[in-house]
């Protein structure tokens, strides 16, 4: 082989070149290695920053690969979701978790934010409600998702950033519920009308599955509305139809009785009332209720059910509390409106149906109100009356009188009453009763006059007629008594002539006449004597009215004792025993009271039975009167004769059995009636008689 220096040199040259090349490669490599090292260090640093950012931010971040594998989820995502999704595949999301849209509809798996991101779509702040067994109350998310693309723009995966907006959503829901309830209340005019809308609005806006509204009426809890009205809750709806007594079990009654909200987190724990059982079977798990309070009393109950087991949510209870107080206020307002309407209707109907003319005038005397009757009587429609004055409708003189009366009312601020006497154009009398009163405004300032007047002619005429009749009657009674008195007085004289001369005949000519004549004369004398007795009795009877003394406080006991003294002989002869209670002071005529007792005692002595007479006299207080009685053990009176015995000259027995004209009790009746009392008898034939009468008590005569 030929090796030349040239060759060697060339080779050496090559070697040097190669050495140089190597050197430069080495340098480059070194440089590159250095650069790589730097880059690696930078990357490491960046990744660590990113990691710590992901670890520390409050928002949840999750990254999935194109095929749904979770590549990354930060600690916030675990906290927010309540689970670590690291091992899951997003494609199975809907199988593992419940997800709902904001409108409450379940999410279509293809519409889930990350599903859309790996299809290349961008999703901004989508709302998602997610719930699973570890978080049964669920969580509201606001999700923003983006596709992840490589440098060629190919989608390699997706990233989602989300936050917990449960609190906000709840507040929104509560606001929505409040708004819905306020709206329903604003549109309703009665609680009955509002009830269904209220329950529905509350359930829908709060995401509750069943609601009912109860009202306390006649100490029973009546269900006003339920929502929904059918479906799985049918049994619950049916149970709501009968009113609940205060002693029945179950949620609504408990709340009604306690007046406090009640939360039953798990219906399984409830006492097994029919409602709770029905609710459980309808899929309900949690129940709660709040009282509706109106004017400090529980007037109703709002009851709700949820198909989730939920721990007590104080803010929900608070919300329901505020809703029920809205409803309570509504009821109060409606009651007040109703009362106002009723009272207005009442006054309107009074003003328009009473036979009264009613009108009001302002301070200037202008009509500001007139009822229909006044318009009718004036013969003008209301619009032609308002704003005018009395001068427009009445003669000047009359209008001036009215104005003067009005001014007096305004000045004195007192009611003015007058009976005006008018003469109609036809010349008839017309009496008008007028009442005028000041009208005050709310501030207590007098703003006008109210006038009420009515035609009192009929009453006034009737009254005048009555007065005339009464005067006539009094005069006639007086005349009649006077007549009886004078007649009986003057009849005595001729009668005495008849009897005396008959007797003189008898005395002087007895032996000169025959037996017949003697008999005739004796009949004539007998008749005359009897007539004289009758006349005397009539005189005594009429004297009760015409010769009575004024009625003054009098001792009834001393009247009785006087009567007993007058009858001393008859009492002794009959062996009677008369007992009496202490008797009171009465307002009376002592002479007539003596006669009253004397006649009654006299009767008791006269109509005695086989036994010696036993007579008792007593009295007891009866309102403004004293009730007296005179009771005997005599022959008694048949009840059929009770009325007859008080009639003048009525007798129940022949003169041979018992003498007398039948005047005694008639006089008793007249005396008692003159005193303003009554007299009656209680008796049965053969069982004694009890005469009772009343006399007015004297002031302070005890009870």
């Amino acid at each position, binding site marked *: 082989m030929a090796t030349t220096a040239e060759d060697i040199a060339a080779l050496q040259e090559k070697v040097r070149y190669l050495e140089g090349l190597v050197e430069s490669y080495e340098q480059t490599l070194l440089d590159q290695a250095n650069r790589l090292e730097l880059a690696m260090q930078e990357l490491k640093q960046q990744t660590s920053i990113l990691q710590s950012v992901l670890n520390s931010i409050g928002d949840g971040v999750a990254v999935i690969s194109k095929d749904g594998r979770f590549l990354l989820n930060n600690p916030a995502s675990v906290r927010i979701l309540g689970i670590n999704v690291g091992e899951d595949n997003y494609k199975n999301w809907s199988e593992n978790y419940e997800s709902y849209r904001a409108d409450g509809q379940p999410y279509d798996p293809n519409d889930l934010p990350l599903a859309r991101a790996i299809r290349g779509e961008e999703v901004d702040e989508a709302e998602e409600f997610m719930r699973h067994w570890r978080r049964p109350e669920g969580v509201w998310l606001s999700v923003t998702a983006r596709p992840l693309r490589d440098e060629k723009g190919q989608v390699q995966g997706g990233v989602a950033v989300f936050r917990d907006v449960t609190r906000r959503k709840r507040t929104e829901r509560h606001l929505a519920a409040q708004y819905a309830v306020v709206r329903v209340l604003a549109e309703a005019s009665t609680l009955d009308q509002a009830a269904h809308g209220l329950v529905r609005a509350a359930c829908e806006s709060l995401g509750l599955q069943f609601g009912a509204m109860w009202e306390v009426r006649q100490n029973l809890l009546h269900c006003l509305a339920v929502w929904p009205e059918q479906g799985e809750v049918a049994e619950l709806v049916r149970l709501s139809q009968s009113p609940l007594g205060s002693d029945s079990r179950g949620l609504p009654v408990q709340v009604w009785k306690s007046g406090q909200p009640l939360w039953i987190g798990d219906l399984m724990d409830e006492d097994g009332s029919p409602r709770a059982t029905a609710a459980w079977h309808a899929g309900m798990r949690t129940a709660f209720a709040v009282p509706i309070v109106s004017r400090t009393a529980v007037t109703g109950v709002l009851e709700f059910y949820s198909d989730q087991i939920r721990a007590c949510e104080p803010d929900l209870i608070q919300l329901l509390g505020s809703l029920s107080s809205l409803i309570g206020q509504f009821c109060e307002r409606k009651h007040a409106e109703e009362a106002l309407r009723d009272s207005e209707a009442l006054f309107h109907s009074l003003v328009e149906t009473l036979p009264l003319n009613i009108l009001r005038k302002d301070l200037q005397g202008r009509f500001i109100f007139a009822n229909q009757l006044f318009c009718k009587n004036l013969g003008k429609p209301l619009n032609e009356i308002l704003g005018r004055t009395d001068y427009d409708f009445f003669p000047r003189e009359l209008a001036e009188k009215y104005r003067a009366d009005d001014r007096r009312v305004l000045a004195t601020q007192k009611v003015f009453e007058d009976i005006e006497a008018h003469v109609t154009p036809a010349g008839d009398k017309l009496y008008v009763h007028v009442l005028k009163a000041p009208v005050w405004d709310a501030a207590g300032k007098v703003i006008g006059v109210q006038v009420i007047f009515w035609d009192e002619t009929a009453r006034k005429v009737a009254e005048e007629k009555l007065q005339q009749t009464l005067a006539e009657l009094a005069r006639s009674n007086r005349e009649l008594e006077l007549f009886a008195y004078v007649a009986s*007085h003057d009849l*005595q*004289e001729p*009668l*005495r*002539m008849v*009897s*005396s*001369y008959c*007797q*003189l005949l008898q*005395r002087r000519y007895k032996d000169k006449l025959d037996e017949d004549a003697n008999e005739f004369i004796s009949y004539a004398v007998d008749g*005359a*004597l009897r007539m*004289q007795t009758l006349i*005397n009795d009539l*005189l005594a009877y009429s004297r009760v009215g015409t*010769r009575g003394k004024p009625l003054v406080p009098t001792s009834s006991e001393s009247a009785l004792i006087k009567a007993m003294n007058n009858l001393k002989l008859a009492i002794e002869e009959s062996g009677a025993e008369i007992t009496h209670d202490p008797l009171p002071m009465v307002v009376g005529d002592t002479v007539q009271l003596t006669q009253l007792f004397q006649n009654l005692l006299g009767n008791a002595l006269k109509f005695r039975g086989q036994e010696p007479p036993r007579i008792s006299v007593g009295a007891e207080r009866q309102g403004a009167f004293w009730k007296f009685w005179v009771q005997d053990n005599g022959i008694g009176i048949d009840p059929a004769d009770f009325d007859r015995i008080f009639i003048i000259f009525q007798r129940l027995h022949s003169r041979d059995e018992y003498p007398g004209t039948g005047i005694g009790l008639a006089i008793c009746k007249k005396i008692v009636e003159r005193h303003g009392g009554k007299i009656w008898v209680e008796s049965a034939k053969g069982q004694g008689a009890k005469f009772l009468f009343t006399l007015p008590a004297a002031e302070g005569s005890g009870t």
Partner: protein
Amino acid sequence: MSSITRPVEILLVEDNPGDVRLAVEALREGKVHVNMSVASDGVEAMEFLRREGRFADAPRPDLILLDLNMPRKDGREVLAELKADDDLKRIPVVVLTTSKAEEDIVKSYNLNANCYITKPVDLHQFIHVVRSIHEFWLTVVKLPPE
């Protein structure tokens, strides 16, 4: 006494002739012996007592029986005049009338009647009354001298 020295004089003031006769008959039946004069009303009675006109010779009565109800001048007026007259007021007056009215009784005594008697309807009682009047006023009672 007057009854011994002269017959007893009685003035009956009475408008009803039936009553006058009855009184006369009663005196007769009662066997009472008196001189009885009659005045048929109050005017006549006062003329008699004052011996006026045709009564100039009238005796002064020992006793007056006076009816109350009469025409022209009634018994009450006679009684009032009589008892106001110093000369006549000592003559006892027996009011003899049909009336039983309380006010008549009270009024008569207020006018100083010496006694008041209601005429009984029964003749026998009337006779008894007349006899009693005589016995009491004209024998029992001591009267003032004329």
